């Protein structure tokens, strides 16, 4: 089994804790994306796995072998860097084979075969004799990926490999990376700050903040049932609206209220919520789960409208809280209007005020799926 496992990984730089007790399990053949805002420790985590940094505490295992103190060269990993890290004085071919030719495990013929194969997969056969300065950004990135391919490593580590490309090329390379992984099935850990990249590429996505893993889940589940307030706000474009309110109970009915606004929770309301009646909570609702309705329970004063083509993103204030709502395109909405809104009762989320942990997702089926996911931790076999 060629997965990656980290156990209670901690990295401190002087008095800054970059990685704070990370337990991560990348299964064999899986494409796991580690996503988080700048400075959340995701790159440091990747570098700890590559062996470029040594952990302050904790252990790293690759393919069930403890490599915590093993040097980077002996971990059988290949890394793709954001800046491509191609040697400027070598041709694309030399860049791909550098480091391979000394390792006795390959003969020259084997090396040539591997380069030819990788070049074919990446469609860079014509570029092999050019130096990096004669290649475009996208071509350089292909060569950098090719360099990782020819090594046929246990694990690919990718550190924001698409960040230096322009938007269009990034979308194209993203699709190619997904295709490549489907073809090769090599265990991959991919670091990015771009949540769209994370959602589109990952079999599972790990969201990281302040050196801690917030949630590891398949993309859709991450979106539908965020485990913490941070994940809810970070995932999605734009992220989830969150507002602090109070749980009010009137007989069977349970509401979350703040100022003059009230959002009813669908019945039956679970014990976890009713037991908190009277307490402060954070209510979360995604912009697309809010819609216009006459005499709806929420009143939003519009401050900004952003036509996105397929929808009209409208920002405004509900009470004193800024919220965003995704309206149908060409809706007649102007700045200063007061919209009457309602929230989809099946798509509400409640988070603890102190810890930020989610304790309620109104879509029951989603919630039960989340429990299933946590329980199901069996390794996927290679196809």
């Amino acid at each position, binding site marked *: 089994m060629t997965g990656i496992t980290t156990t209670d990984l901690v990295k401190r730089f002087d008095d800054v804790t970059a990685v704070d007790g990370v337990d991560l399990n990348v299964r064999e053949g899986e494409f796991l994306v580690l996503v988080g805002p700048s400075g959340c420790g995701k790159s440091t985590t990747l*570098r700890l796995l*590559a*062996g*470029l940094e040594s952990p302050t505490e904790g252990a790293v295992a690759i393919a069930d072998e403890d490599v915590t103190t093993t*040097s*980077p*060269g*002996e*971990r059988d*990993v*290949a*890394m793709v*860097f*954001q*800046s*491509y*890290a191609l*040697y*400027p*004085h070598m041709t694309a071919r030399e860049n791909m084979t*550098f*480091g*391979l030719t*000394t*390792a006795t495990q390959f003969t020259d013929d084997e090396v040539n075969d591997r380069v030819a194969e990788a070049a074919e997969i990446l469609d860079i056969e014509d570029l092999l004799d050019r130096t990096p300065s004669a290649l475009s950004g996208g071509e350089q990135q292909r060569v950098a990926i090719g360099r990782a391919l020819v*090594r046929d490593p246990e694990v690919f*580590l990718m550190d924001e490999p698409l960040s230096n490309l322009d938007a269009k090329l990034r979308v194209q390379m993203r699709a190619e990376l997904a295709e490549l992984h489907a073809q090769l099935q090599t265990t991959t850990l991919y670091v990015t700050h771009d949540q769209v990249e994370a959602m589109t590429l990952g079999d599972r996505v790990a969201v990281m903040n302040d050196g801690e893993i917030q949630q590891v889940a398949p993309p859709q589940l991450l979106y539908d049932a965020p485990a913490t307030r941070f994940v809810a706000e970070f995932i999605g474009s734009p992220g989830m609206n969150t507002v602090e309110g109070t749980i009010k109970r009137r007989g069977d009915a349970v509401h979350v209220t703040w100022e003059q606004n009230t959002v009813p929770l669908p019945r039956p309301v679970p014990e976890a919520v009713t037991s908190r009646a009277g307490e402060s909570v954070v209510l979360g609702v995604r912009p697309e789960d809010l819609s216009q309705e006459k005499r709806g329970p929420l009143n939003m004063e519009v401050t900004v409208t952003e036509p996105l083509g397929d929808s009209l993103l409208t920002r405004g204030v509900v009470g004193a809280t800024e919220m965003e709502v995704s309206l149908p395109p060409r809706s007649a909405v102007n700045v200063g209007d007061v919209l009457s809104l309602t929230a989809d009762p099946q798509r509400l989320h409640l988070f603890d005020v102190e810890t930020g942990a989610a304790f309620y997702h109104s879509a029951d089926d989603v919630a039960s799926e989340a429990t299933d996911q946590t329980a199901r931790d069996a390794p996927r076999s290679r196809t």
Partner: protein
Amino acid sequence: MSLDTEDTAVGTREDEPLSIISDTRLVPAQWRVHLGLIGSILLMASPLLLAFVMSTQTVPEVYDITNVGIGSDGLANYVEVFTTYGMASYMFNSLVMSIVVTVAKIAVSLLAAVALVFYDFRFKNAIFFLILFTLMFPVPVRIVPLYEMMAALGWTNTLLALTGPYVASATAVFLLRQHFMSIPDSLVESAKVDGVGPLRFLWDVLIPMSRGMISGLSVITFIYAWNQYLWPLIVISDQNKQVVQVGMKYLQSVGNAGQTDWGLIMAGAVLTLLPPLLALIVFRGPLLETFGLSE
């Protein structure tokens, strides 16, 4: 309004090439400046020109102050310094010394710079500043203790003594260090992940990427070593092993009736100049790069 401003902008841009064309006329517009430049170049080159003129003159011609034309001796002085006075062997000794110093200095400085940039160890900065500190103690300042050391080692009169004190160089370490620091970390890390060892990284990545810097440093070092006078004079007593700068001094004692044969000395001086001049001409590109002056 806005159109007008645009027009003016276009107008000035079109004017520029015209003024450039007028600069390249046969008689330059700023001829006074050029005259001044030519004058100052002549002034700076005058010792060289005089040396060359004197090297072709006979002894009486040299002592005739007003005679500044090419002398009647032709290249006879050059032939003589080579055949009679062993200039060839001095030049060979100098060449060996300069090459050994250059190669050894670059090798040692490369390793030192690699250690200072790519390795983490305790007191790294302190060590670097200690290296820089040695700039304050050039060889002439250390001559007495150095000589004692060479005598104790039994190295006097050998190539080891001639080259040894020049091998470590703070300047070269400093320049290479600054250059290595400009190499992106990701290249180093990529090599680490690929299991490329430090020496292979030095040889296959750092040296090819620093080719300009290394050639520039080599030229400076070569010329510096070639021009050494005081230390060889002290540490080498065997005339056969002597270098060219000291060899020139031996020429001074040659001459008839107490008259120094300046023609001979100047021929030696011109010959001595040629190897560094050649090095400068061949490697002027990387040399400018080393000092960050190339365009």
